């Protein structure tokens, strides 16, 4: 730590004594709707001095006194060139107009601006804007953020109908998913078929697969940073769409012109309305909806406040059998304050909640579980000089987890009331990070995050004989639950267990020439919350659990190196990255583990480790009638779980085994072709090595049944997954002066009707008595049509 601080001081000392300098600060916005632009650039022509706008459209740069030509640009927008005389600190706000040709044209940006991306040390990041996502073919025409990021290298999931996504061989719970800074605990609607993000309410998304900036913490694999639109502060606008599964409507407009705006977006499925008309299904219900809200107000040039929220819910009722509902709720109140020309700050108060409920009518049981957190965050950006920008801040998250409460639903119910222990925890974070242009060619981003975690009392903790919650039974060669010795009661003001970790982050970029660079990064991060899931797919019913006495925080270390090149005058870009990642304290579950309604999860798990490595190639075509990208990933992801304190060899005899999200090859090709003013075509092609599974290696007869025996964990694989999707967008004669603008999107998912195995189950046919392998394939060829409108 001491050395680190010393290093910081030394690095800064080189830049503090310089000639007379002044700064320019301001915001860059969209001319037509006043949306702040994230990642727009401002450059002083003829120098290497420039800046990129932050999440709130703010920039600040410092340059020696003089006359300059500033160029403000953003992909898809017309650049502005302006002469300035820099002899005093000044505020300059810019509004960029969308370039005429870019209406409907897709922009794919892996980094904000190619000019900068070559230079910026940040690597392993992918950005997609809402426009791109909307152009990609989607199942049943439902535009889906989570599915679209799976077209990027290093991102996969467990197949159709599984929730979440996997980044660089990491688990679903290792992704920090943020919607306007609020944690989203479950990204899926309808058990993973669709995602919770309504593309109409989203400005852009950024996925950090590695080299995670120090301001983010709490997850070990990735950060998916989703930002909602602010709302049009010039005109009222209505956007909407009617699809096969759901309909959307978004209303936005000014509260006070140019000062404040709002956005309300809603989306709802309507299968349940159709079901009402069918006699047999009229009492059943399958639906989801979500509501996005954002409003902001600029109090004065130094202060702006934002309020954003999300509420989403899935309802799944089967008449007289079960009622199931789950969803996320978030709210975020933010205050942007500019202290001076160089110091920008943002204070956020955030609330997130995820809950689910199941009512089983036939056994008269009502089950609820939830996780919620309050988060306070104060982030600063200090534009120290033209060479150094500093990010620093602090955050505190208070968690309350209710892993399960069971109630009888009637007096006659045989169910006893049961409430599992509520769990409380506090996670603190402090960080400082610098982006430092060391020489013309070498830029570094270095920082340190310090995180703390306290598992708080207010519950009893079980103590086990020999401190072994899990014990190896060496005679039977199985892991068993440990024997309870006693219980310790912890008061609400006590902490059960404390952890703290230093998480250094380092990124370097060396520019080889104007069009190419190499980058390297080192990231250490810690994760204190774990999603308990012993199934191959994460489900909405899985519960989160905090680290504590028995479950240790996961710690990851990732090294990555990459090569970046623009060619043909930036029409093409190539990114090649390779990474190696290790994760300590990755839990896995003993055979026959029982996670539902279990108060002592520690008796079901063993602490293990995971490692992943791979090579990712992304080739993009950014310009012209045909745009798109090809992504290829070659990777390996495996884990090992030794017996440790429980004794014995561990899971799978202590050998390394594939994680369920190991994919040797993953190829995605996305192409978008603008045929003419009316038609644009797009297509996805996906090929993936099959998911690791464990197949039976024999059978025996027991009580008249054929019982399967199994070999080593995840040693076999499902058949390879591949499919082709196409879609076409038809825009009828939309005259520029007409307010109503409509478009039709026609799509076919899985064009050649490949029956991809979501799973293969092994069962004994109850008529023939013979064993069978049954393939479950989820989506065959699925046509869709959607109508989108805007006025």
């Amino acid at each position, binding site marked *: 730590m001491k050395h680190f601080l010393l290093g910081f001081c030394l690095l800064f000392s080189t830049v503090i004594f310089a000639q007379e300098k002044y700064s320019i600060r301001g915001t860059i916005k969209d001319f037509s709707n006043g949306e702040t632009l994230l990642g727009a650039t401002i450059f002083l022509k003829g120098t290497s001095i420039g800046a990129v706008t932050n999440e709130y459209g703010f920039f600040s740069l410092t340059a020696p006194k003089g006359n300059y030509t500033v160029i403000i640009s953003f992909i898809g927008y017309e650049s502005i060139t302006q002469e300035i005389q820099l002899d005093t600190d000044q505020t300059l706000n810019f509004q960029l107009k969308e370039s005429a040709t870019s209406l409907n044209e897709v922009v794919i940006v892996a980094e904000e601006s190619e000019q900068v991306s070559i230079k910026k040390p940040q690597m392993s990041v992918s950005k997609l804007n809402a426009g791109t996502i909307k152009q990609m073919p989607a199942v049943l025409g439902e535009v889906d953020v989570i599915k679209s990021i799976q077209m990027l290298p290093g991102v996969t999931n467990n197949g159709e109908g599984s929730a979440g996504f996997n980044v660089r061989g990491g688990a679903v719970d290792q992704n920090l998913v943020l919607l306007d800074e609020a944690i989203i605990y479950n990204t899926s609607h309808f058990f993973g078929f669709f995602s919770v993000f309504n593309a109409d309410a989203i400005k852009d998304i950024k996925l950090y697969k590695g080299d995670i900036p120090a301001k983010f913490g709490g997850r070990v694999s990735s950060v998916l940073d989703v930002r909602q639109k602010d709302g049009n502060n010039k005109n009222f606008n209505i956007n909407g769409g009617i699809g096969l599964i759901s309909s959307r409507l978004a209303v936005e407009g000014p509260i006070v012109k140019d000062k404040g705006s709002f956005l309300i977006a809603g989306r709802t499925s309507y299968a349940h309305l159709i079901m009402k008309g069918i006699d047999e299904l009229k009492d059943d219900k399958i639906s989801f909806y979500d509501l996005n809200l954002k409003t902001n107000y600029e109090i004065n040039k130094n202060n702006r406040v934002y309020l954003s929220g999300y509420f989403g819910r899935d309802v799944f009722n089967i008449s007289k059998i079960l009622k199931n509902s789950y969803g996320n709720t978030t709210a975020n109140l933010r205050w942007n304050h500019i202290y001076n020309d160089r110091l920008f700050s943002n204070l956020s108060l955030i609330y997130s909640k995820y809950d689910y409920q199941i009512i089983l009518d036939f056994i008269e049981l009502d089950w609820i579980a939830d996780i919620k957190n309050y988060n306070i965050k104060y982030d600063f950006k200090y534009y120290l000089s033209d060479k150094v920008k500093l990010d620093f801040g602090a955050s505190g998250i208070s968690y309350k987890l209710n892993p399960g409460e069971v109630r009888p639903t009637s007096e006659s119910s045989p169910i006893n009331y049961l409430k599992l222990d509520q769990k409380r925890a506090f996670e603190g974070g402090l960080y400082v990070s610098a982006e430092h242009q060391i020489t013309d060619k070498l830029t570094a981003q270095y920082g340190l995050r310090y995180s703390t975690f306290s598992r708080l009392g207010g519950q009893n903790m079980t103590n086990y004989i020999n401190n072994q919650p899990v014990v190896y039974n060496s005679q039977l060669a199985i892991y068993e639950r440990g024997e309870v010795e006693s219980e310790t009661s912890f008061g609400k003001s006590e902490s059960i267990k404390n952890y703290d970790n230093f998480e250094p982050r380092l990124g370097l970029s060396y520019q080889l020439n104007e069009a190419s660079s190499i980058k390297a990064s080192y990231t250490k991060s810690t994760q204190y919350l774990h999603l308990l899931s012993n199934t191959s797919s994460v489900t909405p019913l899985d519960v989160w659990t905090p680290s504590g006495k028995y479950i240790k925080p996961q710690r990851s270390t990732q090294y990555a190196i990459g090569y970046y090149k623009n060619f043909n005058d930036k029409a093409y870009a190539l990114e090649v990255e390779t990474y190696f990642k290790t994760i300590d304290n990755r839990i896995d579950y003993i055979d026959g583990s029982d996670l539902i309604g279990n108060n002592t999860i520690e008796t079901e798990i063993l602490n293990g480790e995971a490692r992943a490595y791979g090579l990712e190639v992304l080739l993009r075509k950014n310009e012209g009638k045909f745009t798109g990208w090809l992504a290829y990933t070659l990777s390996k992801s495996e884990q090992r779980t030794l017996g440790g304190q429980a004794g014995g060899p561990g899971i799978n005899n202590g050998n390394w085994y594939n994680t369920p999200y190991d994919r040797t090859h993953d190829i995605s090709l996305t192409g978008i072709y603008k045929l003419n003013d009316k038609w644009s075509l797009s297509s996805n092609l996906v090929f993936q090595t099959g998911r690791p599974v464990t197949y039976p290696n024999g059978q*025996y007869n027991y009580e008249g049944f054929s019982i399967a025996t199994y070999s080593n964990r995840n040693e076999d694989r499902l058949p390879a997954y591949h499919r082709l999707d196409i879609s076409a967008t038809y825009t009828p004669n939309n005259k520029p002066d007409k307010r109503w603008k409509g478009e039709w999107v026609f799509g076919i998912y899985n064009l050649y009707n490949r029956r991809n195995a979501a799973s293969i189950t092994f069962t004994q046919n109850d008529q023939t008595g013979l064993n069978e392998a049954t393939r479950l394939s989820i989506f065959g060829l699925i046509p869709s049509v959607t109508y989108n409108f805007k006025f």
Partner: protein
Amino acid sequence: MKTFIKGIVLILAVSFTSCEDVIDLDVPTGQTRLVIEGSLDWEKGTLGNNQTIKLSTSTPYFETANIPVVTGASVKVRNVDTNEEFVFADQNDGTYTISNFVPIIGNTYNLEVIYNNETYTATETLIAVPEFNSITQSIDGGFDDELLEVNVYFDDPADEDNYYLFSFYEPGDLFANVDNFSDEFLNGNEIYNFFEKEDDEDNDQAAFQPGDTVEISCYGISEQFYNFSSIIIEQYYGGGDPFSSTAAEARGNCINETNSDNYAYGYFRVTEVVKASYTFE
């Protein structure tokens, strides 16, 4: 039971869009092992003197030939509490029988099988089971409120953890329907279990009609057998589906004392079982 709750929610969700088909698939072939089906079940109302233990070997997963039976083994059971020994007679068809077994609730029994000069042992305790209070039929209970189901009621003993194995069997079917559960959420209450059949053209199954008979068995089982049977039941009824646990071999309680790597499949259990037959009206 709990896996079942979760399973039903998720499988119903998937079933709306998915399709299933049987495919040809190559699977690996593991080691051939001895299989011990040592189920000493004492039916309430009987003396429990007649007991059978079956020995066989495992086969490749898709093997359709007859089950290879094991003959020539020595099979003995000893009551650890009374030290009484019961020697099972080889019937030369893979079964080993006895006609003077003495079951005592709460006593611990020890199995010893000697086969191919290797000794396998296992230990279990005889667990009691409550009587059925009543058996009823209904239409509006169960999963489907238009089909007949049978309901079985019994009192779960308070102040102890109980585990049950249930079997519902309609004579004429190839297989019984088996499930197990613990009294975790139900301790000390009157518990009921139900069984309903659905019409299924693919499987030639029909819902219960008046006049149909169903045979019901409920076994009092140990926690260890509950854990073992939970794994095989989950795997049997849906091994490999996306919401099932990662498949792993269910290790029974039979230990090879001579060569621990050459362990046996199967289980040695000693239970009390209550049986009843119900004819729908």
